[in-house]
């Protein structure tokens, strides 16, 4: 006869026949209606619950937080089986049927079956290890999230501009400083050892001449209290070794790359330096190829996805810029503008994604090798590991290389077609609206974007057509609010990311918001009161969660589809977060439909 408990899944398949019989002889079934708070914190457990059907939530009534969800074949509460009182409360979310095994029997089984006991111990040990790892990683995460304060800033020595070269050198040696701050008429400059050498050796200045002339007055500064990470980012972006730390207007100290680097255990800056110092394409390629490892490192170390995306956007931008500078003749460089679009433009790619780029040409440009050079550019990016764009939004496609005036005409045309509901044109507008200038004359881009914003102003019908695109994919939730996915997995891009990104984009165009990053747009929209505070927080968190899930999926080796998420691979906790996120998306969709007056989507 078929038994009423299936011993096929772990860890119960480890039990021997006689142990199975003992197990079955003591197994009961219990039924709980919806919202039944059946285990209270502090109770001593007498039963081990194995969910047969339904959904149970582990939560804490005291501080209103949710810890885990248990569904079919999950069991709880292991911790309290060994005598300690239950740490949390348990309640049913839906009607739930559980098998129950008396605690004594469970303990007997653990004592008599080493492998079975091992499973639970390992399970527990693993959980603790994960917890500990998380704590351990805090060091790194904490470091990046550390704010700049007196403890990590090197003090700055401020000298007058009339101090002589000799005195300055002496001070540096005595104070063991590498840099001095020179004050001249309220202006601050930085003086390094190299500057002194240049003055004394190359320019053969007298040793008693003033240092004023040799200090560098164009300082990049960062505010005290800002994240250490941002200091790092500033140095990477400007390719410099030091930043000045300011508190309001006064200088409080200097932050050096070498100092930061000694703390930073990931190699982001090393890569950045390699990119900056690459003298030829081969070197640049090598640097580009290490990017994925960097992302993996950062993720494994528990760095927040927002920081990873920001860092990666900077890195990718640098690579594009460097390649552009290596390939395009200098005379042409400042007459054209290279822009990246799509997720790259929004600064949201988490790994190297499709190359979405275009070029704006100056009006008086003469560049005979244009086509050949641009083709080469795309080819090199491909060899760096950036797959070609399926929609051919690339500089080797003449359609995406236009002069300023041609672009204006093109946008005019798209706006015109968009008004009659041509979704193709609307998508093109969406693409160009997310553009971000990375190299060349960056002033060429903003007029184009302004044209889109102006062109859409007050055109409610068109905006509604535009926003409708965000609603075209259904939310992967079934009638009961559970996650719906087919065998291949859940398409997180269609099911969530696209809807949020495009919906927010529509709102941003409507409100004339210029930033391209979706999270920044959400914050702007909240400021303008278009989105409610709570809604904006939910959306930001959800989007970050989706990005993180997507990244996690990309990094796992056995994975075929790019955007397909394997629900079964997620822990109950993650699954629950995902479910919550999808509900946020669903709500956001009805918000969009209401806001843009879209019917029957």
């Amino acid at each position, binding site marked *: *006869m078929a*038994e009423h408990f299936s011993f096929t899944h772990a860890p119960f398949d480890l039990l021997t026949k006689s142990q199975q019989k003992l197990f079955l002889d003591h197994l*009961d*079934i219990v*039924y709980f*209606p919806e919202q039944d708070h059946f285990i209270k914190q502090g109770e001593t457990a007498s039963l081990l619950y194995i969910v*047969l*059907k339904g959904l149970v939530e582990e939560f804490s009534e005291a501080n209103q937080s949710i810890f885990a969800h248990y569904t079919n074949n999950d069991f709880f509460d292991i911790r309290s089986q060994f005598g300690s009182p239950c740490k949390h409360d348990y309640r049913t979310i839906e*009607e739930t*049927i559980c098998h129950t095994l008396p605690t004594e029997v469970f303990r007997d089984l653990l004592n008599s079956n080493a492998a079975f006991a091992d499973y639970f111990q390992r399970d527990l040990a693993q959980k603790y290890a994960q917890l500990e790892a998380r704590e351990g990683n805090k060091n790194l995460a904490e470091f990046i999230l550390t704010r700049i304060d007196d403890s990590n800033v090197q003090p700055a020595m401020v000298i007058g501009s009339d101090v002589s070269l000799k005195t300055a050198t002496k001070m540096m040696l005595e104070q063991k400083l590498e840099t001095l701050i020179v004050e001249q008429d309220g202006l601050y400059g930085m003086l390094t050892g190299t500057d002194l050498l240049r003055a004394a050796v190359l320019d053969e200045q007298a040793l008693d001449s003033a240092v004023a002339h040799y200090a560098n007055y164009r300082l990049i500064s960062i505010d005290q209290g800002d994240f250490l990470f941002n200091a790092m980012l500033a140095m990477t972006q400007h390719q410099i070794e030091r930043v000045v730390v300011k508190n309001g207007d006064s200088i409080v100290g200097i932050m050096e790359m070498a100092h930061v680097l000694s703390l930073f255990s990931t190699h982001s800056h090393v890569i950045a330096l390699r990119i900056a110092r690459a003298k030829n394409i081969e070197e640049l390629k090598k640097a580009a190829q290490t990017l994925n490892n960097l992302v993996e490192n950062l993720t494994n170390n528990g760095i927040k996805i927002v920081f990873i995306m920001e860092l990666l956007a900077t890195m990718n931008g640098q690579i594009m810029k460097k390649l552009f500078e290596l390939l395009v003749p200098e005379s042409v460089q400042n007459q054209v503008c290279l822009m990246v679009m799509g997720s790259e433009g929004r600064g949201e790619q988490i790994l190297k994604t499709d190359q979405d780029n275009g070029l704006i040409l100056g009006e008086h440009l003469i560049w005979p090798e244009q086509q050949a050079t641009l083709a080469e550019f795309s080819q090199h990016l491909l060899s760096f590991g950036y797959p070609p764009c399926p929609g051919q939004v690339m500089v080797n496609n003449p359609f995406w290389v236009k002069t300023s005036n041609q672009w204006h005409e093109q946008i005019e045309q798209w706006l015109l077609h968009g008004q009659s509901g041509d979704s193709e044109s609307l998508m093109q507008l969406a693409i160009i609206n997310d553009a971000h200038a990375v190299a060349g004359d960056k002033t060429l881009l903003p007029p184009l974007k302004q044209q889109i914003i102006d062109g859409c102003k007050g055109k409610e019908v068109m905006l509604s057509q535009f926003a409708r695109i965000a609603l075209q994919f259904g939310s992967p939730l079934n009638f009961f609010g559970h996650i719906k996915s087919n065998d291949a997995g859940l398409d997180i891009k269609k099911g969530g990311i696209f809807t949020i990104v495009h919906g927010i984009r529509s709102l941003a165009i409507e409100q004339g918001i210029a930033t391209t990053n979706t999270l920044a747009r959400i914050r702007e929209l909240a400021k303008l009161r278009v989105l409610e505070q709570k809604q904006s927080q939910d959306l930001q968190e959800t989007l970050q969660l989706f990005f993180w899930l997507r990244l996690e999926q990309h990094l796992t080796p056995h994975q075929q589809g790019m955007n397909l998420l394997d629900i079964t691979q997620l822990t109950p906790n993650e699954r629950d977060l995902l479910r919550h996120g999808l509900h946020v998306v669903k709500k956001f969709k009805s918000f969009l439909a209401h806001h843009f007056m879209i019917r029957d989507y």
Partner: protein
Amino acid sequence: MLFQRFLRPFDKIRAAKGPFAGLFTPCSVDEVVSIDCETTSLDPQSADILTIGAVKIRGNQVLTSQKLSLKIQPPKPINQDSIPVHHIRNQDTAGAMSLEQALPILLNFIGNRPILGYFVKFDITLINRYTELYYGFHLPNKPIELCHVYYKKVNTYYPDAWLDHKFETLASTLNVPIIGRHSALGDAITVALMYLQLQQGKRPKLM
């Protein structure tokens, strides 16, 4: 048959001397026994019992740890038509007990608790045939028909609905997993779970 019905009140007197006097006392515990039999045919007057599954329900618990699952040796070979339903072949009944041996175990298990079942009348009629034969009384226990409980709960809100009482439909409407369909114990457990759902859960939604 009609005549026998008038004799039922005397069952208690007749059983008082026997070992089953307890059956006729009022039920003292808040428990119900869910019961299911697999048989050789669907006619309660001629069918032979092959297996009996029974399980107690207490509060919100199905006490599967105190289950009863009895294999019975039928007096004549199993009718070939029923084998595909219950999956019990003639050779499977080897070593099974006779009904005469099984009956006391079953009656002691049930005690004075109400008997729950899906089309419970069929099972009770079957058992009564044998208790009549061996002990001269019918089961005095209060029968609880799952379909009636279901009908009562649903019909109040959907008075005009045509209710499908198929076992599978019931289970899916009540959102209860089917445990070992067409094994006596499995069906008894499933019925017990459906009963608990009806007693304590929300009113089911008809699709």
